[in-house]
């Protein structure tokens, strides 16, 4: 993935080879991972725990709220139903008490009462008066039931025993569902009569269908056998068996959850209506009720997801930023350490060179004088003149001494300037001095070195030792890049009033484009097998920076490399402290 590669921080693949057994302390990837996991853990675990807890608490409270609401609805409706029957029963009781059997039995009396009931309370279809023997003595209504004997019927026995009877729903005249209510009126002489009425159920159908319920709610009544007494929206027709089982008896309202045959979760509230055979049922679809919760849940999860992403993003960014800072600080530390090491090494080499030069110099001076004296003897004393061969030998000794002296002088001057601070430097002379170290190598390998200075080049203010090292490094690199018979072109010219430009161009192997950006980094080397430390160019760049100059590079693989060194004519004074 190229995108991931470009995003990858520099420390990711870094391994400190010098760290040894303390490698863990410099494993930045591990540091980054640890930071990310710890920070993300500390931030995310409480967030996720809270979200989970909140999720469950909210879900449970919504569920119990739904159960409670269903229970309330069942209770209220039960009360209404109870009053419906109580009202009619009371009306009949009142009529039975207000009139005696004789008055009710008079022709036209029941007609008048039925008419009044229909107009005032409503829902009455017929009325009947039955004597203690079970004979219907008077009747008003759509059927001809006068004289029918009910003594063997269950409902008659029930009303005789308990004083009141309310029937299940049945299909009556014109196929309309009806209910029978009967009351017993006991007389002071121990005798009694029964007053009976038939009600049509439309009244309490309306009552139930008028209820407002959410969640595909359905309110209906069943009898104790489970037969529907009122129409239901989803659970069967009137007088058919309901698709739901008959709930067990309970003196109070109950709500429970159950799955129906299709596996849909239902919330069922019910109540046994006292003194009647009826059970009021309210059934709702749980999924419908929880719909608002679904929306809330999605919002909650969305918010949680976004929060987690933001936290993770911030944590990763922060960890990358911090670890990168530590990494850079560490890199600077290592570079400084190596720099110091390198400077120390150079100083040691300088001291060693100076010592050697000095030790060699004294005997050399003596050889010089002795040979000089021999030559003088041949020149000035008559007795020795004329031997051309000996004179030639002495000249050879003297010229060799001169050469050896030049070498020690060069060594001394080189070492002398390693620790030297700022001075005025003739760039051409300095470069010639450095080039003299390469003369032999160039000769052996037939490398053609050309040095050319154009224009008026001022003496620049600089640190001789560091400048020597800069060019030593550049020439050294150029020589290793070139094949035998290559060309090294060095040109010096004024860049502007304040700067001098030195270009060092070789026609060697060149530098691949991907390496070009990294060559000034410490420890970047392509010559590690052949002893490259990867420090040369980084130190070169560092030295130049210290001196207020800079270095740029252009290269074409296979064609050669050109380094351009720009040096200021005057140096800022503060650099002196670093020298």
């Amino acid at each position, binding site marked *: 993935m190229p995108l991931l590669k470009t995003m990858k921080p520099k420390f990711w693949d870094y391994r400190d080879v010098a760290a040894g057994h303390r490698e863990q302390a410099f494993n930045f990837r591990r540091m980054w991972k640890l930071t990310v996991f710890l920070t993300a853990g500390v931030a995310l675990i409480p967030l996720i725990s809270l979200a989970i807890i909140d999720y469950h608490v909210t879900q449970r409270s919504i569920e119990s709220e739904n159960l409670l609401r269903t229970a309330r609805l069942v209770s209220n409706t039960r009360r209404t139903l109870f009053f419906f029957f109580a009202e009619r029963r009371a009306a009949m009781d009142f009529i039975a008490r207000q009139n005696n059997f004789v008055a009710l039995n008079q022709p036209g009396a029941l007609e008048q009462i039925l008419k009044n009931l229909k107009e005032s309370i409503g829902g009455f279809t017929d009325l009947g008066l039955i004597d203690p023997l079970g004979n219907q003595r008077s009747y008003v209504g759509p059927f001809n039931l006068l004289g029918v004997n009910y003594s063997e019927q269950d409902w008659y026995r029930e009303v005789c025993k308990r004083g009141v009877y309310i029937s299940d729903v049945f299909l009556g005249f014109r196929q309309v569902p009806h209910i029978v209510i009967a009351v017993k009126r006991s007389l002071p002489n121990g005798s009694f009569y029964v007053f009976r009425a038939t009600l049509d159920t439309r009244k309490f159908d309306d009552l139930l269908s008028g209820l407002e319920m959410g969640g595909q709610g359905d309110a209906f009544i069943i009898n104790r056998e489970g037969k529907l007494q009122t129409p239901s929206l989803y659970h069967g027709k009137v007088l058919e068996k309901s698709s739901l089982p008959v709930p067990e008896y309970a003196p109070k309202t109950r709500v429970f959850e159950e799955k129906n045959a299709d596996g849909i979760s239902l919330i069922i509230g019910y109540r046994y209506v006292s003194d009647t055979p009826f059970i009021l049922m309210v059934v709702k679809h749980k999924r419908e009720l929880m719909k608002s919760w679904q929306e809330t849940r999605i919002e909650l999860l969305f918010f949680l997801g976004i929060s987690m992403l933001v936290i993770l993003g911030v944590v990763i960014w922060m960890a990358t930023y911090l670890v990168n800072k530590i990494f850079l600080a560490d890199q600077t530390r290592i570079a400084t350490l190596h720099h110091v090491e390198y400077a120390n090494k150079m100083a040691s080499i300088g001291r060693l060179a*100076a010592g050697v030069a000095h030790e060699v110099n004294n005997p050399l001076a003596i050889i010089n004088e002795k040979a000089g004296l021999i030559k003088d003897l041949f020149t000035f004393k008559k007795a020795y003149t004329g031997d051309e061969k000996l004179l030639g030998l002495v000249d050879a000794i003297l010229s060799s001494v001169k050469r050896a002296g030049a070498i020690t002088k060069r060594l001394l001057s080189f070492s002398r300037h390693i620790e030297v601070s700022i001075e005025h430097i003739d760039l051409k002379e300095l470069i010639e001095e450095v080039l003299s170290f390469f003369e032999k190598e160039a000769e052996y390998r037939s490398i053609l070195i050309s040095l050319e200075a154009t224009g008026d080049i001022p003496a620049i203010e600089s640190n001789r030792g560091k400048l020597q090292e800069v060019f030593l490094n550049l020439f050294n690199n150029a020589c290793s890049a070139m094949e035998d018979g290559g060309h090294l072109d060095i040109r010096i010219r004024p860049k502007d009033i304040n700067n001098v430009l030195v270009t060092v161009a070789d026609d060697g192997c060149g530098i691949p484009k991907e390496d070009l950006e990294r060559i000034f980094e410490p420890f970047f080397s392509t010559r590690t097998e052949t002893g490259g430390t990867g420090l040369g160019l980084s130190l070169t760049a560092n030295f130049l920076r210290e001196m207020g100059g800079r270095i740029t590079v252009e290269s074409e693989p296979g064609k050669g490399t050109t380094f351009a060194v720009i040096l200021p004519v005057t140096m800022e004074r503060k650099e002196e402290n670093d020298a």
Partner: protein
Amino acid sequence: MRILLIDDEVELVSTLAERLSFRGIEADWATSGREALEKVAEASYDIAVVDIKMPRIGGIELKRMMAEKYPHMKFIFMTGHGSEEDFRTGSEEAGAAYYLVKPVDIEELMKKLNEVLKR
């Protein structure tokens, strides 16, 4: 012109003195600061060629001592060590032009001697 060569290497100063004598210059030599001071007390010299690094009395110190007593004397320094300190003090004391690095070329020494004398 009479000159005094001072260096702790006997072989060097003695040979150098002999070579100068071939060129018509009267040269004496000494191998230590003390000996040099004795010689200077006995005879008068125009120029002293002094090695900077010598045991006990160093070249710079010797030059100061002699210059104090014999203000007319002139000095040329020689050194086998090209250290920064030598160079700086040597050229400060005698001027950069009169500072020679060993091994010394006899013709150059002659040139310098003549220059110093003319100054």
